[in-house]
């Protein structure tokens, strides 16, 4: 699992590359737990190269979602592969989280 951060003003874009399972999701959890992440108003998660997600990976997002919402930080996923999106859908997480198709759409939603 490779995590790359790109910062532009108050927007943090996190690019995920690889597979998020019970072993690798610890790294993502550490990233989202950093205190400085609360300084951003938008967190965009680029899932183009996210090839796999298990419940452990979903659990990381589930555990931070409310904290981000309470701080009025928008968490938006984009470029998600169909097989990965399907895993979110099985649990109904696509209804609780914002998943859009492209970076442009993510920025539009982020700026609403």
């Amino acid at each position: 699992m490779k995590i790359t951060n790109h910062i532009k003003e108050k927007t943090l874009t996190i690019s995920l590359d690889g597979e998020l399972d019970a072993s690798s999701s610890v790294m993502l959890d550490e990233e989202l737990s950093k205190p400085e992440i609360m300084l951003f108003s938008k967190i965009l998660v680029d899932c183009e190269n996210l090839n796999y997600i298990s419940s452990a990976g979903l659990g990381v997002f589930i555990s931070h979602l409310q904290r981000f919402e309470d701080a009025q930080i928008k968490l938006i996923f984009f470029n998600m592969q169909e097989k990965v999106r399907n895993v979110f859908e099985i649990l109904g997480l696509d209804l609780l989280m914002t998943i859009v198709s492209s970076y442009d759409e993510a920025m539009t939603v982020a700026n609403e």
Partner: protein
Amino acid sequence: MNNWITISCNKKNLKVVRDFVTDFLAPYDLPEVLLNQITLAVDEITANVIIHSNKEDDSKFLKLTITPKEDCFLFEIADKGISFDRSSYVEPDVRDFVRIGKKGGVGFALVNRIMDKVEFTSQGSNNICRLYKRVR
């Protein structure tokens, strides 16, 4: 290709299990989403066996066997750790998990929703989880 694999109870071996499942199923040309679902369900049970049943003890092992049946695949995960008590399992409400910031506990819900039948048996110290998935 063998229809079984044995791994030690280390989370790093989850990738080995997923690769084994996808390689074994490759000749069957399953749709990508279905193949990912099956791999995910096996990964979830394997992760539970490694983490909860065997406490990530590298000296312990589990065996995964895949058997193609007439209209389905059977996945058997066998180990000698602490057996899973299905009677105490409660289907999670994901909205509650979001509200309280809960990190784990949705893996078995995925397995239940993906697989057509899920069985757990224990005899002495031997536990077997059987997952059945129809593909036709």
